[in-house]
């Protein structure tokens, strides 16, 4: 075998090796690209997209529910039937003109929890009641202005109930005996997501961290905790599709688009 032939063979071998190397490198690069993309998409973006904010007062729903006669005692419906949303200072002052609770005893076994509640009430009275200033609550369920939502219609509708298969809709199912139907309906949608657990708001002992979408300025609760948008429960999110799913089924057996105008007046 002459020298040049050898060189040719060697050249072909090198070429093959080089192609394999390039392929392997490309595959690796593709893998890195895929990994980075997935990492950013699934783990980095959610952290970047949502700002975490704490409520001005760590309100304890559970303790208040023991004092009042259901959710609508504080989250009132006005005389004209419209829903008032978060209670105003004038409502809170009915009970909290002064600090109601007493400073807990350090010996108490629930000292930490009691102290937390006590501090929250002191803060509320000193910062807001004393200065006649409304509490700037961050609203988890705030919808855009283009959405009309009637709480009264949902609270009173026989159709708005949880079915045995976990979905919302007719036919109605019975509520548990010890549960007020209205409260049960409130808790159907308004769930507090605390440390990965979904707790009905009426039973929550503290308020969840409010995560605000930096682009839309709406709460993460609207899109849902699952970043993929695939939710398991009806209470996981409150996007248009969630409303449409039921409204389109209820009206004209899903054959009509007039469900749009139920919310977009």
């Amino acid at each position: 075998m002459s020298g040049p032939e050898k060189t040719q063979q060697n050249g072909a071998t090198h070429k093959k090796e080089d192609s394999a190397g390039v392929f392997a490198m490309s595959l690796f690069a593709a893998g890195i690209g895929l990994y980075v993309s997935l990492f950013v998409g699934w783990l980095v973006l959610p952290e970047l997209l949502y700002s975490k904010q704490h409520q001005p007062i760590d309100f304890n729903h559970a303790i208040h529910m023991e004092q009042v006669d259901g959710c609508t005692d504080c989250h009132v419906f006005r005389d004209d039937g419209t829903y008032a949303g978060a209670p105003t200072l004038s409502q809170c002052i009915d009970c909290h003109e002064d600090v109601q609770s007493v400073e807990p005893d350090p010996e108490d076994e629930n000292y930490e929890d009691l102290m937390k509640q006590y501090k929250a009430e002191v803060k509320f009275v000193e910062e807001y009641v004393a200065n006649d200033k409304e509490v700037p609550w961050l609203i988890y369920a705030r919808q855009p202005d283009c959405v009309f939502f009637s709480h009264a219609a949902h609270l009173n509708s026989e159709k708005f109930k949880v079915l045995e298969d976990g979905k919302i809709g007719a036919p109605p199912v019975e509520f548990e005996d010890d549960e007020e139907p209205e409260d049960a309906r409130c808790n159907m949608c308004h769930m507090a997501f605390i440390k990965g657990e979904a707790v009905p708001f009426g039973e929550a002992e503290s308020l969840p961290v409010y995560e605000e979408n930096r682009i839309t300025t709406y709460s993460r609760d609207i899109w849902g905790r699952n970043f993929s948008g695939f939710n398991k429960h009806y209470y996981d999110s409150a996007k248009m599709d969630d409303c449409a799913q039921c409204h389109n089924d209820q009206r004209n057996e899903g054959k009509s688009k007039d469900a749009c105008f139920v919310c977009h007046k």
Partner: protein
Amino acid sequence: MKLNRRNFLLVSTAGAAGGAVGSMFSPLSWKLMDDSSVWSQNWPWTPVPLDGEVSFEETTCALCPGGCRVKVRKVDSRPVKLEGVDGGPVNDGGICILGLTALQLVYGPARVRTPLKRAGKRGEGKWVEITWDEAISDVSEKLAELKGAGQSKAVGCITNGAKGVTSALFARFMEAYGSPNHYWQATAWDSYEENIQRTLGLNGSAGFDLEKADYILSFGAGLLDGWGSPVRMFQAHSKWRENHDAHVTLVQIDAQLSNTAAKADKWLPINPGTEGAVAMAMAHVIISKNLYDRGYVNWSTTGFRDFFRTVQTEYAPEKVAKIACPVQKPEYVKKWTEELESRAIAFAKAEKPLALAGKGNGDRPVSQAELNAIQSLNALVGSINREEGGMVVIPDADKYPWPPVVLDADAKGYKPALVTTKGRTKYGASNLLSNLPKAINAQHGGLKALLVAGANPLYTLADTEETAAALQKIEYIVSFASQMDDTFTYADIILPDHIYLESTVDVPTPPGFAKPVYGLAKPVIDPVYKTKAMGDSIIEIAKAMGGTIAESFPWGGFGDAMEQAMNEKWNALDSDGVYVNEDFQPEKEGIRFRFFARAGMEDRISLQGSVEKYPLVITPCDTIRLSTGALADTPFMVKTVSDTKLKKRELVVQVNTMTAQQYGFKEGSQAILETPVAKATVLVHCSEEIAPGLVGVPRGLGHIAYDEFVGGKGTNYNTLISPVQDPATGFDVAWGIRAKLT
């Protein structure tokens, strides 16, 4: 593997492809796409109405004398909308464009938000914010200083009319202070009051039962252009048109095809200023055809014989047509005369005819000669004090039952007012504000201080240059304006008034309403800025001055003075916001109408300027969309003005197509409109809706102050004209001025 360019690109592409595939399996792109769409549907800079409890509160609109009951829709404490109250005695659910958009006066950029003191030169627009205490002491100290120096008569005061508790408090202040110089600007309704005194010997204002009249002769009254109580007029017009069986005829006798003329059954075009002569010609026809109400004329009038003779000899329609018919072609004149005759006959034959005066929106006085003639028509057909569909006299309200004014020696002494009156007027010189600038300019030091309360004389008085010169001569001007109006620019100190929604304001019987009605505006929102009701400000100034002036104001505040003034009406006003005297019966016993033989043509007002130099005549155009009084349009109203009146920032004048051709103008041509007192650049709108030789100029534009939405748009009609005094009263009755277009 060699890291050459090719391999680098290959590997990078693979990495990018991997990233792209990965992005398909991560929510990144989908989520960002969704968020972007939500963001773009809710632009953060788009205002979103606040959510809150909706409530309605009723009050009475006090922006004009119309007396409409309105309700304000509030979300929590913020007012968001105004609408008419169903069953309101004047407006029954209706509201005008000014009333509807009044919230722009509350929140608009032209609102004066705190007391201010001038920092720079006049007109420079430099102000410093001061406290209310500083403002009250500044004014009271200055006024005390002038009084101490024996200069009490050198303090003047301008209010928006005579009626109402606020004006009465300012009048009381001037009396206690010792100055005779309290003025307001007369309107057509002041002319009517004068005429009622002259022809019927009564003290009262004119009311018209328009809803029940069946034949209406309107001598230039812009019934649908802001005349009387505008909402009531729109509703009356609707009622006339609703009933097809008993059709009400409206004849508009007017120099131009105004909105009212366009909606009338018949428009009889005339030369402006000949309304009185035309009325006399109609009287001629009625008398000649023996169609007048003999019962009324024989038993309830005086002076008919002389009137009869004058009318028959001097006011034959053919003779009047020579001055009044806008086109002097024999064929046209013949038709015009026939039309005049047939309308006069129909008027006299109607069951409930009514003749109306008051040019345009009625805020300009009418000469007594013209009113005498028009009222004579009402007398000839027995429309004065007729049971239904006639004219009634609403007697002046009793004086407020306040304790007497306490006067010191200075205030007791007689001092003549700065304005002298040749004619006799019911209110002395007080409603001759139009003559004040000339008086100030003629007498150096005539006024050293001026209180401007609810008026805007720099805008509303004819001949702006003369008014501005007069204001410059006054050392100390106090403005109580709620908006940065034109006069505000000359003020030295501002004590800003509330808007009526924040305040208690009484609204006396609206002009032209046929029953005594009293409205009360009550605060339906908390004051948005650091403003104060004018009534409270003047009471505080009086108290700060001490002595007899303070003693004359014994009330704790404006509310107390109001309650005492309203007397027996207070309970009804406090609970219902309105008081209607349903049992009202006009005084008829022994009341006789006096015919004036010299009516119509002899005292016809002649305009300034020579025909040779100024061959055209300016005539004003009024529309409900343009506010011509002390209060300017709201920004929204300006947006509704058509481009045949205002094009961008230029005034558009209306000229007959023939006249435009004669002077070489086309539609949209730019021209210089010149009068003996001023000139302005205008755009020409060619139209058949105005007689040849006339230039229709919209009123209500050309404010020099306010904000970018209202100010600097067009030219103020009043800058172009100069006042012409009515020999009988001294009122400014100029209905135009001679002009040329070049």
